[in-house]
């Protein structure tokens, strides 16, 4: 295969690489939408009454005629098939419908909540990755085996402690005890810190497991042996050689972690009373607000698929071998090799 020098060839390669990815991308989102639709609508009970009772409390209307009118208003009338197509076509036009429980447009609710969640998730990811790299670095450069073992034992604690508990402990110490950070809400820009740390614990711990394993493996590899023999300092070897090679398998886990974050934010957003996708989801599920649940699922599926697409593409940037041959199989092979060999 030619090197990626001339643009038409490069374009063709990119299309050949991207086209199946995009088809897969669309399929994943359609399938997620359909499964969610079936789950919501095949469950027993009436989603309209459930959502109305959130707003109406003990004054909730149960008059059949009134319910029929409301059903039509929220697009919940007609056969299951009509509803499915109606909502799907609407969604394709960018209209996610109205929330039954709040009456607000679903698109607006998500647009409002998404940046809050993204801010916490990104900060959590950065904190988790940076601290994993730092801890691993110290474990790598230390001369004493017991220090290394101790350092390597700390991060798994992050997974063991539930986010609900660590969140409350952090609030008690830093907000109520020391009065350093706000306990809740998103009115103060600093209020992002505690939820991000809470989420960074499990996220960092998972990332650490993969990353530190890759680093330890690299320590035993021939190129590190060569570099050491040449007299390079451990710090230089780590930053120049080991870090780059270990990031490749770690990038894969990042894609999965973003999926984890989508679920994990529900807990921290509840504990820290923050507006966000997680809490929106919890509220919508409790109210069986089907329009909101479907809207969120579509948006989260979109985000997740885009991230995974980006992860796939990033192999080309990090590993020059995949850059030279940008084809699906080459990337897949590079992924496998990255995990075992490097």
């Amino acid at each position, binding site marked *: 295969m030619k090197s990626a020098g001339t643009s038409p060839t490069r374009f063709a390669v990119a299309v050949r690489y991207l086209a199946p990815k995009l088809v897969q991308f669309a399929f994943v989102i359609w399938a997620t939408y359909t499964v969610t639709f079936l789950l919501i609508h095949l469950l027993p009970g009436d989603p309209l009454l459930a959502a*109305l*009772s959130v707003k109406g*409390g003990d004054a*909730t209307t149960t008059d059949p005629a009134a319910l029929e009118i409301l059903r039509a208003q929220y697009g919940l009338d007609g056969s299951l098939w009509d509803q499915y197509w109606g909502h799907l076509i609407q969604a394709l036009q960018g209209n996610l419908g109205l929330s039954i429980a709040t009456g607000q447009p679903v698109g607006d609710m998500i647009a409002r909540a998404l940046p809050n969640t993204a801010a916490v998730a990104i900060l959590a990811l950065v904190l988790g990755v940076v601290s994993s790299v730092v801890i691993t670095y110290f474990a790598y450069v230390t001369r004493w085996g017991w220090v290394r073992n101790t350092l390597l034992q700390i991060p798994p604690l992050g997974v063991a402690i539930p986010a609900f508990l660590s969140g409350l402990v952090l609030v008690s110490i830093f907000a109520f005890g020391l009065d350093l950070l706000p306990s809740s*809400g998103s009115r103060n820009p600093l209020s992002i810190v505690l939820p991000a740390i809470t989420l960074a614990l499990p996220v960092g711990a998972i990332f650490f497991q993969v990353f530190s394993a890759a680093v330890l493996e690299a320590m035993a590899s021939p190129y590190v042996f060569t570099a050491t023999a040449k007299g390079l300092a451990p710090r230089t070897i780590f930053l120049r050689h080991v870090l780059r090679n270990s990031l490749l398998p770690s990038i894969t886990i990042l894609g999965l972690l973003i999926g984890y974050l989508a679920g994990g934010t529900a807990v921290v957003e509840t504990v820290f009373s923050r507006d966000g996708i997680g809490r929106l989801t919890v509220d919508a599920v409790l109210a069986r607000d089907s329009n909101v649940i479907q809207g969120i699922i579509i948006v989260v599926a979109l985000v997740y698929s885009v991230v995974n697409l980006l992860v796939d593409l990033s192999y080309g940037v990090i590993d020059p071998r995949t850059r030279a041959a940008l084809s699906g199989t080459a990337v897949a092979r590079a992924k496998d090799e990255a995990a075992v060999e490097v």
Partner: protein
Amino acid sequence: MSTKKSRVFRLTAMPVAALAAISLLAACSSGTADNDAAPLESSKDTIVFAIKEDPTCLDPQLTSLTTSLNIGRQVVDSLVDQNPETGEIVPWLAESFETNDDLSAFTFTLRDDVTFSDGTALTSAVVKANLDSLIALGKTAPLASQFLAGYVSTDVVDDLNFTVTFSAPNAPFLQGASTMTLGIVSEATTAQAADVRCTAGPIGSGSFVYDSYTPNDSVVIVKRDGYDWASELREHTGEALVSTIEFPVITENGVRTGGLESGEFDIIQDLPYIDESRFTTDDYNLYAAANTGVPNSLIPNTTRPIVADEAVRKAMLLGTDREEINLLTGSVSGQPATSALTSSTSGFESQAEATAYDPDAAEELLDDAGWEMGSDGIREKDGTKLTVTATAFYAQDVLEATQIQLKKIGIDLQLKMVTSGDFFGAIATGDYDFLAAGLTRSDPDALRVLFSQASAAKWGIVDDAELESILLEQAATSDTADRQALIDQAQEIIIDKAYLVPMLETTQLHASVSTVSGVTFDSASRVQLYDVRASE
């Protein structure tokens, strides 16, 4: 009296007559009334009131969520106010009001100095627009449509006088007019779509105006400059005492209580009962009021064979120990339920004797009715087990306590905890033995809403012509004493025939730091923050 002056003025005007009429100073220096003390003020400008959930809808006409109403009350005034202690209806936006003999027409005279926060004046036409739009909204405003049942029209006499007419007598209307469900919003607001009113918030004539609403995060209200038409039930007159009230949405109980302890919040909504004892010290103030209306109860569907047996229902009523339920699951500040209405509802008449715990009498009733104790501790009759279900979507602990108590007399109460949607679904189809829930309404008419078979929102299914006629009659009786007699009768029948097994008076329990004062409940057990103030 042509124009209603401030409370200070009226109280002092009597002894000091004309002299006081020309001088407010005179009013401040004369007499011994408590409002002659130093004027109320707050050294803290901003009060932080942590609420437990997103208010969802800011327009109190369109929601019945307690959290929304607690905030909406500060922004929207009502035609009349109700004294929560005596049940007396007093002037507010309307300086006077009268009804015709059969309670089908209500004539109001408005104050002439009231404006909405958009600068427009309160006139009869605005009130008409309010009521007409509520009728047009129909089921989108479910509570309002109950208060306005039989609404015919609002006839404007002039700018300040108007008459509201109903096709049939409507005794609960005046009381409904005191709630924020029938609060008065500006004409511009009435013309808006329901979802806009919910998110943008209505333009009211209240002592505060909406400043911002970030869904799921916070609501901020600020003081209305120039406000001077508080009802006489308030402690002071003029503008509110604090300039800003923030309502952060704090869903996590531990964060609300922790924030109160650390001083991050001044007031918190819904202190969990379990935390109550931590906050009974002098550092905090507790505010407790039982929800008005029907207490959390078992509400029967007497078309079910076992439930139709009066002996079974009576045995359940006598076999339920409400003292214990309150002790186990209620607020320390709460009282055991003793009637079909809660003790905070106007018209409440204690049935303490008839509802006293008496398991022996309960067992005797069941024995006499042929329910024999089976080997498994559950009674049975002709091969049928004495098993009934209770459909509920909250307060499982209350039901569990009841379940254990009823088991002792051989009744097997099966709990059917469902989602709120399924609960209302069961009501719509009539598919239940007992419902377990309370119904919040500030008027004793709650009994008609719950029990009258003619009511659109009926929960209880009973076939009792006497009760039905009493319930309908009380809604059409203008004489207070006569109406009270009917409501007493209704409570008596409901308890006597065990059409309801009361379990617990659910308490609204809020807490503040002790430097905060002036938090009061209105007659619907929602908070009124006009007088709220805090010292540093």
